[in-house]
């Protein structure tokens, strides 16, 4: 009974926080502010959160950023949630703003990329399309199966995290991941930047640890305060939709839609479904595209364009 009560209690709290943050975003208006916000230092600033029943709550911004769960709590997941992502391939033009946002938010040096970009082409007769790839947060994660110490784990909210305090750096998970989602801290990840905070949390992977594995973590610390992950909010084209499958809603910051309707009407698919990994990331096929794939070459070096063309078998 009490557990149920607690669930409800905390759920209500989340909704309150969620609404408040949602209202904040709406009032704050637009993505520009969201982008600028990601880079700011949060020091003693207060954010006002509005609950649905009109209560005004004041939460310290920096406090919010440093309230990710640690220890056992971080292994369990946020109750009654099941986080999913839908990536709209029709909108992506390889702007890579999501990666910039991600690296800023996770305090990653430029060489560590948790989101990767591919130019895929399914067959010679089809057209190439840009394919941004976060960690798929598989429901049957091959990486979790093979970890000898349980340093990487699947949570009840669908998120696969890594405990860098426990990781022994054997890299078996990297071999097991068929999507090359995991990266290794070959050198100290804090050498270029000051680590955020001092208490390690698997929900933020901060401060980073040398000799351990890292990957996209679906930003559970942001979910806890009802804020969208940086990749979602910094995408100029609204490619990423993120949300709770249990609520059947995903949002890219500007559009909020029913998850089930979106993936059914737009024929969403999961990448390499045949591998049986049951990814938690869905892709909307690149039909009626907003951009020609060549737009994605704009900011790239000759060499990189060459590599992409080679991978996608483009001969021109």
């Amino acid at each position, binding site marked *: 009974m009490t557990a149920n009560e607690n669930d409800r209690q905390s759920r209500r709290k989340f909704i309150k926080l969620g609404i408040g943050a949602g209202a904040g975003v709406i009032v704050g208006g637009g993505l520009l502010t969201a982008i600028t916000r990601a880079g700011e230092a949060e020091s003693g600033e207060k954010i006002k959160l509005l609950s649905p029943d009109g209560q005004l709550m004041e939460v310290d911004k920096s406090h919010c950023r440093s309230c990710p769960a640690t220890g056992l709590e971080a292994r369990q997941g946020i109750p009654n949630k099941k986080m999913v992502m839908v990536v709209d391939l029709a909108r992506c033009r390889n702007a890579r703003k999501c990666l910039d946002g991600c690296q800023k938010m996770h305090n990653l040096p430029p060489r560590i990329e948790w989101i990767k970009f591919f130019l895929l082409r399914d067959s010679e007769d089809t057209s190439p399309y840009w394919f941004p*790839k976060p960690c798929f947060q598989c429901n049957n994660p091959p990486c979790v199966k093979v970890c*000898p110490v349980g340093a990487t784990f699947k949570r009840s909210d669908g998120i696969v995290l890594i405990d860098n305090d426990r990781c022994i750096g054997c890299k078996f998970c990297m071999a097991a991941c068929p999507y090359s989602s995991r990266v290794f801290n070959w050198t100290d990840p804090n050498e270029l930047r000051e680590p955020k905070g001092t208490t390690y949390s698997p929900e933020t992977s901060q401060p980073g640890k040398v*000799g351990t594995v890292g990957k996209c973590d679906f930003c559970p610390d942001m979910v806890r305060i009802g804020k969208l992950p940086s990749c979602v909010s910094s995408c100029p084209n609204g490619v990423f939709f993120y949300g709770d499958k249990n609520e059947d809603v995903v949002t890219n910051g500007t559009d909020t839609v029913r998850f089930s309707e979106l993936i059914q009407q737009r024929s969403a698919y999961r990448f390499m479904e045949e591998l049986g990994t049951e990814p938690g990331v869905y892709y909307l096929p690149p039909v009626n595209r907003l951009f020609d794939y060549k737009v994605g070459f704009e900011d790239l070096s000759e060499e990189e364009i060459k590599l992409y063309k080679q991978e996608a078998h483009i001969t021109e």
Partner: protein
Amino acid sequence: MDQNEKTLQNFENFRPQIESISKKGKITIAVLSLIILFGLYALYVQMVKGHIVTGMRDYVIWGLYIVNFIFFIGISYAGALISGILHLLRVQWRTPIIRMAETITVVSTLIGPCYILLCMGRLDRLHHLLLFGRIQSPIAWDVIAITTYLTGSIIFLYLASIRDLAFLRDHPLSVGKWRNPVYKFLAAGYHDTPKQKELLNQLIDLLSIVIIPLAILVHSVLAWIFGMTLRPGWHSTIFAPYFVVAAVYSGTGVLILVMWVFRKIYHLESYITKIHFTYLGILLMILGALYGYFTFSEYLTSWYGSVKWDMAVLYRLFDPTDYWWWFFFAAFIGVLLPIAIIAIPKFRNINSIAFASLIAVFALWIKRYLIIIPTLEAPLLPLHDLRPEYAHYSATWVEWALTVGGVATFFLLFYLFSKFIPIIPIVKIKSSEEMDYLKLRKLTTQRMLKRIMKQVRKDKKVVVVVLILLFVSAGHVGLTQEQLTPRLRLDFVNKSGIRLLNAKVTVKIEGKNTPVADLKVHYFLIGDKTKKPLGIDTTNGDGLTSFTLPADLGAPRSKEGAYTYMACVDSTKEYSGASAEVNIRDVFMLITFHQKDTIKQIMVEAREIGPKGDTLPVQDQKINFYVPRTFTSLKIGEATVVNGRATLDFPVTLPGDSIGNLPIVAKFEDNEAYGTAETNAVINWGKPLPPMQIIHRGLGDVNAPLWMVYTLIILLSLVWFHYMYAIFTVFRIRRLGKKFEALEKTGSGAIQ
């Protein structure tokens, strides 16, 4: 008598081997030690600088170390399988080679796992394997299997050496006397009494039975580390037997090489004869054919099936500009040449067989490289990395130094061991007894630079902008006092009766609306002729402020029933003043829920407050309905309020919480008359969430599936029970020996 003389003669032959080290031997030790020291230096470099000094990167996460690991565990088969099987089959010619075989097993099983440790990013957390070990992981299987295997191999080698140790105890050495007490201790009071003999033979038989399946399991587990992943070239059902066959093949090859080397340096021509080379050579040939068959089967299957990813690996192996020549050597030369040399009697002699073995061993090392590296270089998604060291693996000097160091350690340990105990068993026993004894047994820098340059350029831009701004603003302050004009936006929000004024201050910089922080916003209530101050708030980092209005404003409404609010910012040095006004009528809303048969409807009643506090139904206003969710609110519909009422069909498919509760918000948005006004209610019409399913056991969970736990416990207890029994029996032999010695002292020589 005859037997003892033969043993004594053997001993005399081997006395120089264990009593002195020749000049060449000393040079060998010195050279090997130097190589090992170099390896240790490489290890030191890797420890200090981290794994960045290796050629391993995000895609090719394992390199030479894993190759060496498989290689050393592979050659350990020499002892386990060859001596185990030869012993159980009571093959006569095995006697002179079994100790070498067993020593290969122990030494290579000691060295092999060290390479796994070299691959670990956090060696300081090795104990986590004990603290948090998960038996679902093939690495855990490997750790368990290899420790068990190593223990078994050491016991096996020891049991098979007891007779020689006892002999050495009875014939003390004159040089290096420190060894004599060690022999005495290790000989465990063995005096070859009938009972002791029986126990020892029984133990050796037992251990060779245990060690054979164990050896097969160890290499299968090793293959499963790769086979369990979803990688092309690894995810193959025949991987375990393929690894086992390849291992025995290379193990036999190494055994022949070791025989050849020791035959040369210790002049064992009379012990190790052409017979041994021929027989082992034929074994090598059969194993080579078997290995070739497995190779053919593996690559034919994946080529014929032509799955995209398999083909990606195959193309690289068959590409002359890529791995083809290595593959050609490993899969063709390494199989066909040894077979040809040994199969044709004309070519078959000691040196050629040793050469064939060398080819086989070298080819197998290459093969392991070709198993690991090309697969890792061909991930399912394109390996998109401009950094050349990420895209292509090439081992660094550190890895090569540690590889060579490992090989040198192998030879050094082997050589030193041969100084401790004769490399060939010297105690010769009657051929009838021999049946039992002797056992035998067992993206690139450029992309990074580009990024950094981009960053720098961006930063430069920022610096320039800041400088210009500073300059301009300084100019403004100093000269013209020109200020930036902020934009002030004022919104009225009514949240379930709590009225808020939200203001946002932005300023246009380079065409972008940038929020202004730390600006004081004054709020006023504007009357006909009055301007009543309500309060002051400061903008936050997003340029936002929020002010909660008191329930009673203490002022009359206008004729239309509205209040006029104003927000303004005072002029400062940087910014000019700005103000904004809104004219808002208050509205009351109430959500109710109605169900008729199967139709569920949300109804909202909205009444606005008139000039004298009376209420009027809202007319012809658009109202939106939302469901608040984690990040944003989902719009479920809109309706027009007519006569103060609006209805909406309830979205019955929307999930609620665990008991189906669903919050509903009705909202006038940016309404000219009411600003933003909303109210909310909760109804349990949502689809209840199914309770969270918690799976307690599984491959991906904390606890392993039960069958796995039971299998492991049964297997381990079977093996370790035999180890315990062996150790216990050694103590029994020791007790018997003490009894024997006591009897001998009292003179009643004849026993039993």
